[in-house]
C-alpha cells in the first residue's frame, strides 16, 4: 500500500438548486473526522463551478450530494467538464436521493461510488479509502 504524502482531499458539492444540505454537511463532518481534508462548496453550484473548484483545490475525490432529483441531467453536464479539466482520473462519487433505476446511468457516467439514502457514513469513508487511500 502506498504511503500518502498528504491527507485525502475531497470536494463535497451541492449541485443545482437543491437546498437540502443536512446530509451533505453530515458527510463533510464524517470525512473530516476520518482525517480527510474537505472543501464544502455550499449550495447552488453549477457544473462549471464544481469543475473549477475541484481543479483549483487539487482534490482527489469529487463528491456530490443530490436530494431533489436532478442528478442525471447535472451529472451529464458535469462529466465532460471534469474530463476536459483533467479530472477524469479522480474518484467521482455521489450520494443522496438516488433511485435504484438511475444507478446504472450514474455508473456509466463515471460515478464509481453511489451512496443512496440509508448508506452508512463508515461505508462512505471505507469506500473512498479503498479506492484512493
Amino acid at each position, binding site marked *: 500500500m502506498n504511503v500518502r504524502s498528504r491527507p485525502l482531499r475531497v470536494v463535497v458539492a451541492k449541485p443545482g438548486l437543491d437546498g437540502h*444540505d443536512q446530509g451533505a454537511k453530515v458527510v463533510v463532518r464524517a470525512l473530516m473526522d476520518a482525517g480527510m481534508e474537505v472543501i*464544502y462548496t455550499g449550495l447552488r453550484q453549477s457544473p462549471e463551478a464544481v469543475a473549477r473548484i475541484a481543479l483549483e483545490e487539487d482534490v482527489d475525490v469529487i463528491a456530490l450530494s443530490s436530494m*431533489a432529483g436532478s442528478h442525471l441531467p447535472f451529472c451529464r453536464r458535469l462529466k465532460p467538464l471534469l474530463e476536459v479539466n483533467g479530472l477524469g482520473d479522480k474518484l467521482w462519487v455521489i450520494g443522496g436521493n438516488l433511485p435504484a433505476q438511475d444507478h446504472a446511468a450514474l455508473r456509466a457516467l463515471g460515478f464509481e461510488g453511489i451512496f443512496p439514502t440509508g448508506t452508512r457514513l463508515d461505508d462512505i469513508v471505507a469506500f473512498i479509502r479503498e479506492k484512493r487511500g
Partner: protein
Amino acid sequence: MSRDDKTEPKTVINESGIEIAPLYGADEVEASGGFGFVGRPGEYPFTRGIHPLMYRKQPWTMRQYTGFGNAEQTNERFRYLIANGQTGLNVAFDLPTQCGLDSGDPLAEGEVGRVGMAVDTLRDFEIAFEGIDLDRITVSLTINGSAAILIAMYLAMAEKRGYDIARLRGTAQNDILKEFIGRGTWIFPVEPSIRLVGDTIEYCARHAPKYSPVSVCGYHIRESGATPAQEMAYAFCIAKAYADEVLRRGLPIDEFAGRLSYNFNIFGNIFEQVAKFRAGRGLWAKIMKEQYGAQKPGSMWLRMIAGGGGGGLTFEQPEVNIVRGAYYALIAALSGAQTMALCCYDEAYTIPSEYAQRISLRTMQLMIEEMGLTDTVDPLGGSWYVETLTNRMRQAMEEIMAEVDAQGGIVRLISEGIIQAKVSAQAYRRQRDIESGKFRKVGVNCYRIEGEEERKVEMHPYHEEDAQRQVERLNGIRAQRDARRAREALERVRADARSGANLMPAILEAVQGYCSVGEIASELVGVFGRYHEPIRF
C-alpha cells in the same frame, strides 16, 4: 446497564435534554412550576388551545403539500385532493420558481417542474387555481426567497377572478431566515430579505388583513438537526425579528401580529411533542403580551400548521411510514394544531402518488370521523406527566431564547452561520447514534429487512418535454404582453428597491403586467445583490 440489573431503571433523557421520570404525580408538577401556566382554552396564556372550543367547533384544516410539473398537472391533483375531502391547499413550487429564476434560465436546466409546480407568470396561477373556490378552500404557498412575487401573483389572480382582497384568506410561508438555516431557497442577502418580509407583512396588514403573509417555520430547523425545544425557540426568535422589522415602520403590534402563523414539525417522542406545542402556545402568548405589549388575544395566538415529519420517516420499509404518519397526526390532534399536513410514506423516494396522498388524507379524516379526537379540547391537559413536561419544555425554550439574545440575536447568529453549524453538528451526532444503534430507528438499525424496499413505491415520472413547453408558454406571454407596461413596471420595481419604499405595489403592478418571476427577481438582485452562504463547521 445490563438487562438483569433490576435495582435502577435506566436514565431516560428526551431529545430536548429533559430527564424523564418513571412516574409523575402532583409533586412533580409543583416542582416544575405548578399549574400556573395552564389556564383555560381560549384564554391567556392559551396553553390549552387558542380557541375555547377548538375542534368541537371546527376540525383542523387538511392541507397536503402538493405540486409538480406545470399548472395544469397541479390543478388536476388539487381537484383530486379536494374531491377526496381535503379542506385546504398547500402548494409546492419547483426550485427555479423558489430561487427566482425563469424556466428558461440556464441554471433551471433539469429542474423545471421537478419538485413542484413551475411558475413564470400570472398565467400559471390562473391555470393552477382554475375552478377552485378561494373562499371555501384556503391556499398556502410554500414559497420563501421569491415570496413577495408569488404573494403578489396570488392577490392579482384572486382579484382578477373577482375576490375582494380585503377579505381573502390564505397563507404564504415567506420565512426567509429559516431558509438560511435549512431548505436553502434564499436569493438576496439577509438584510434586504428581512426587508421584503417586512414589506409583505406591512402591505397585507393594510390591504389584505385576513391574509397570513408569513408562516414561521420551526419545521425545517428541526429537519436540519435542531431538538424540539430548539425548533420552537429559534422559530420564536425569527418571528420576533420580523415583528421588530415591522414595528420599525410604525405599525402597531396589534395590527399585524394576529396574522403571523407558524409551521412546526412532528416526529419523535409523543409526549415531548405534545408538551412542545402546549409550552409554545403559553410562551408565545407571554412574549407577545409582556415583551410586545399586545392587547388583542389574536396577537398572542400561536396559530400553526403541524404534521410532517419528514425527518422521522424512513427510506427503509416505506409502508411503515404510514403508521408513523398516523402517530404524527394523532400528536397534531392532541396538540391542538389548526392545520395539518402529513408527509406521505413514499416521500423518501419520489413525489407522492395519488394513492399515498389519499392515505395521508384518510389518516387525518379517520381521526375526525372514528376516533373522537375532535370531541374535547386538550384531552391530555391535567396529566401530571404532560403538565410537568410542558413546564420543563417552556423553560428549556426560554433558556435557548435567552442564549440567542446573549450571543447577539438570531439575525447575527444566522448571518454568521453559527446556528447552521450548531444544528448540523447535532445532525451528525444523531446520524452516528443511529448507525451505532444507540438511537433506535425501526427498520434502519433494528428489525431490518434487506433489499426489498424500492418495489413498493411507484416512482413519479419526470418529462423533460414539459419543461420545454413551460419555456414556450413564457416566451408566448412575453411576445403578447404590453411590452411598455412590463418595462415600466420592472423599472419601478428597481426604483422602489433602491428608494426603500414598500416593494409590494410595484411588484403587484409587475405581475399584473405579466412580468415573470425571473424578471422581477433579477431587478431586485440588481439592487440587493445575492446571498453568500457562510461556510462554518
